[in-house]
């Protein structure tokens, strides 16, 4: 019997390569390529007066120096605005190289191509740029005040404004028995994959073709963007995402300036060119996320039921909006989580600042969050505040506001990021909460608290819930092909950054086709293999490509059974495929190998291999029809697409128990418990790994990481020394519990799990710190120094 692999913790097929140094990441390619380096703006806002390259030209090994003036055709135009939206009133994008103005520290001004990167950096050092320094806009307050404008054409710095209402929230709050208002802040962080971005391009002069590799979350998107920018037919451009060293969102943005410039230079120079982003570049010229300021008004009854919720928030979108306003849109639509307030109003304003642009952080591709952590923080803080006000247990208030299982599917009356009505497909929130409380020992916590107090130790417990829209459309495709050797090739267009796609997609195909998983080989992110795709973000890969591949595999199975039926002269209905052999159920003497059927599927049967020889004993095909009948194609392969009507919704709940040191206000994590529901699970080992990683990013965002801009727009912590990405010593062991409510929306019943761990991070720690300290926590992340200062202020005010 072929062992069923769906649902099993199958070890990853990609590992043996990656653990032995045989992975091929972007910078592992193109050893002989020319290297690019960039002169980047040292100022947050400035006008470029002059660029002097006199000294730089003397450097041996220099190939070319390019400024905006050198750019040609569409390369000289502003970069595209990828996701327009009616609320995005003033979208602005930058140029591949700065055109007169620079709007954040790190914006590229000059591209240098040289024999190697060391030399390219030498050249950059010798280029002298003179600037007229302008007053920068840094931070939400300054952006609102608008004493200076990031873009002169947008004097109020407002890029977008949106209001959504379900019911009359303001009236409901006004008439509610109880009211509260809260101001909540979340600071910037960043995806920070261990591998930076990178682009490598080869121009084939003879065939006028461009092949490029990018460390991207969307090779199809990059391909289309580069073809358009370079004015090349799409067929003349191929883009491959090699092994990618993490994405978490930052690599879904495209085209990055370098993705346009490197291919452009390769064509111009007729030589391979490569750019590998270094860590400092990644900090100051890629993307950040998360700075938002929220004001909340809430009205509720004696029981804690929310009657009206009115959220007004401001979002810092940085200097440009190439990726639209997806983050505040997600915050505004996903803020409600598992709750059903009787009415809801949300208004946001997105603001330009002279800082690095923003991109959904783990909310796009290997995504972990994207606007959701902010929304969950706002909502969960609000629920905690209600509980405190009414002196109710925090979980009781949550339970009273939960959407109930019998109310599924539940229409929230909002439009989601995919432009479709926001309707939760499934989920059992009370069951999740019950599981969480049991696992963390919620009801016994007061005993634990007193035990610690007796030892002079201070502990606290926090809880936070979220719902995560996953598997957003519009579509993905899958291709499955059986070779005559028995090798199964699978391709899908979206990309991989560590999610184990080569394994989980192989699991799906192995089960659908009844073949050993060892025979299945998956390719992702290579436009030569599958040209249509959207990309990896928003925990969509398993749902979208998983289902598409399953559908394609079913086509292959149907065709294989039909051909086998003809060969074995029996009804395909009576056949099964076990271990790559098609056989008659109950009569195993009548059988034919799948790979032999692959030979039969092609009327041209040169006997190259053993399968072809084996096939000679079988006769298939209706002699009254042509060798390839009208409705048929040669080959044992299938291609299909999956395009859902709506997104799926995974959900989860986290609880954390912390200890805070009395004198130094350091936070120690004693326990971290996660309960999550991502529908049917293809590979529990991989899902659990995603949760561990997400929690680590949640802890990081709550207690360690931030982007520390000073007033002049300089990022003060643009290194791993000062951007405090946690080590193993800062991250707790995660205890995870699983609930499976299958999604009714797709054939496999799966939802997606890439972001499960990260979303409630700030909310759950704020809840726990507040519980331990007794005063309100309204701003995250929080450092020991800030917590200690807050304690002091509280004491002084008391």
């Amino acid at each position: 019997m072929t062992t069923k692999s769906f649902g099993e913790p199958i070890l990853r097929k990609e590992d043996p390569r990656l653990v032995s140094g045989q992975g091929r990441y972007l910078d592992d390619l193109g050893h002989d390529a020319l290297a690019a380096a960039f002169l980047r703006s040292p100022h947050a806002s400035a006008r470029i007066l002059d660029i002097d390259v006199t000294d730089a030209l003397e450097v041996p090994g220099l190939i070319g120096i390019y400024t905006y003036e050198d750019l040609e055709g569409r390369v000289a135009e502003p970069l595209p605005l990828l996701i327009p939206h009616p609320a995005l009133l003033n979208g602005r994008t930058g140029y591949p190289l700065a055109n007169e103005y620079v709007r954040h520290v790190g914006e590229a001004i000059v591209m240098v191509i040289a024999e190697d990167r060391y030399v390219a950096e030498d050249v950059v050092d010798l280029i002298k740029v003179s600037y007229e320094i302008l007053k920068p806009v840094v931070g939400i307050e300054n952006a609102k005040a608008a004493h200076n404008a990031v873009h002169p054409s947008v004097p109020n710095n407002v890029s977008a404004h949106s209001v959504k209402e379900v019911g009359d929230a303001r009236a409901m709050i006004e008439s509610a028995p109880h009211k509260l208002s809260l101001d909540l802040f979340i600071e910037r962080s960043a995806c920070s994959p261990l591998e930076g971005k990178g682009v490598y391009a080869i121009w084939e002069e003879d065939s006028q073709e461009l092949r490029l590799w990018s460390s991207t979350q969307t090779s199809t998107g990059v391909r289309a963007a580069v073809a358009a920018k370079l004015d090349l037919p799409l067929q003349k451009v191929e883009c491959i995402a090699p092994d990618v060293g993490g994405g978490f969102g930052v690599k879904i943005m495209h085209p990055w300036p370098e993705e346009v410039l490197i291919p452009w230079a390769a064509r111009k120079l007729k030589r391979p060119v490569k750019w590998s982003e270094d860590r400092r570049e990644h900090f100051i010229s890629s993307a950040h996320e998360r700075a938002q300021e929220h004001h909340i008004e809430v009205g509720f009854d004696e029981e804690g039921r929310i009657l009206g919720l009115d959220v007004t928030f401001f979002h810092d979108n940085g200097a440009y909006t190439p990726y639209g306003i997806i983050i505040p849109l997600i915050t505004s639509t996903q803020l409600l989580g598992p709750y059903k307030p009787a009415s809801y109003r949300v208004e946001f304003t997105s603001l330009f600042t002279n800082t690095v642009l923003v991109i959904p952080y783990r909310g796009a591709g290997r995504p972990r969050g994207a606007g959701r952590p902010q929304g969950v923080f706002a909502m969960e803080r609000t629920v905690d505040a209600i509980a405190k006000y009414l002196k109710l247990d925090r979980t009781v208030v949550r339970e009273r506001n939960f959407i109930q299982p019998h109310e599924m599917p539940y229409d929230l009356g909002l439009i989601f990021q995919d432009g479709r009505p926001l309707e939760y497909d499934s989920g059992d929130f009370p069951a999740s909460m019950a599981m969480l409380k049991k696992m963390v020992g919620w009801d016994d916590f007061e005993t634990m608290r007193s035990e610690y107090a007796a030892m002079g130790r201070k502990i606290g417990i926090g809880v936070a819930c979220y719902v995560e829209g996953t598997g957003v459309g519009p579509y993905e495709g899958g291709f499955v092909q059986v070779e005559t050797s028995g090798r199964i090739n699978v391709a899908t267009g979206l990309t991989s950054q560590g999610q184990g796609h080569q394994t989980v997609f192989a699991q799906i195909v192995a089960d659908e086709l009844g073949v050993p998983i060892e025979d299945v080989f998956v390719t992702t992110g290579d436009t030569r293999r599958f040209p249509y795709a959207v990309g990896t973000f928003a925990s969509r890969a398993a749902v979208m490509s998983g289902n598409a591949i399953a559908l394609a595999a079913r086509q292959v199975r149907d065709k294989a059974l039909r051909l086998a039926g003809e060969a074995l002269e029996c009804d395909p209905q009576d056949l099964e495929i076990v271990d790559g052999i098609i056989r008659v159920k109950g009569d195993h003497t009548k059988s034919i190998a799948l790979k032999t059927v692959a030979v039969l599927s092609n009327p041209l049967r040169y006997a190259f291999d053993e399968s072809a020889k084996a096939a000679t004993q079988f006769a298939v095909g209706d002699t009254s029809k042509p060798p390839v009948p009208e409705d048929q194609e040669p080959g044992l392969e299938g291609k299909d697409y999956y395009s859902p009507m709506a997104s799926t919704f995974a959900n989860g709940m986290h609880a954390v128990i912390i200890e805070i040191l009395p004198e130094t206000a350091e936070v120690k994590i004693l326990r971290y418990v996660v309960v999550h529901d991502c529908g049917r699970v293809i590979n529990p080992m991989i899902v659990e790994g995603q949760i561990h990683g997400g929690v680590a990013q949640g802890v990081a965002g709550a207690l360690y990481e931030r982007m520390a801009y000073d007033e002049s727009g300089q990022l003060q912590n643009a290194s791993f020394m000062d951007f405090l990405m946690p080590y193993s010593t800062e991250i707790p062991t995660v205890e995870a519990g699983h609930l499976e409510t299958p999604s009714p929306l797709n054939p496999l019943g799966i939802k997606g799990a890439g972001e499960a761990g990260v979303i409630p991070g700030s909310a759950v720690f704020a809840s726990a710190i507040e519980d331990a300290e007794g005063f309100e926590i309204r701003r995250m992340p929080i450092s020991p120094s800030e917590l200690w200062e807050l304690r002091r202020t509280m004491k002084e005010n008391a």
Partner: protein
Amino acid sequence: MNPEELFLVELTVNGTPLSARVPARRLLSDFLRHDLRLTGTHVGCEHGVCGACTILLEGKPVRGCLIFAVSVAGSAVTTVEGLVNNDGTLGVVQRAFHESHGLQCGFCTPGFITTIHAYLKENPHPTEEEAREAIAGNLCRCTGYQNIIKSVLRAAELIDSGVRDDH
């Protein structure tokens, strides 16, 4: 400007003598990756914090990005490629990572594997807390470290059970 002076740097890498002529400023990580084309050693920050470039210099783990190749000419270096068994099967730490799902994107993994390989030589029976400490100088953005700690313990277990490891 004069062309840059080149130095002949000879190293024994994974048991094989290899050499290249490079400028004095060539970092050992770049020397291995681009001059010797052993790209298993990765570069994540180039300022010594992330640990992706960790290699073994005379058996001891060091940061490849914080050493000039010329400064260690004549030394023996082991990279992640060199920890594969002579018959091509995975070395014991590599196998433990596979079995424990100790990697996701795999970019930081070579630095962890070299570090743990050296650590287990000196501390063959770590506790969970010791395993956590042992990997505390390397950054990973994907795994949350939980399964890397598991991999350390699993590798120790495999060594104890006498599983083949040539290095």
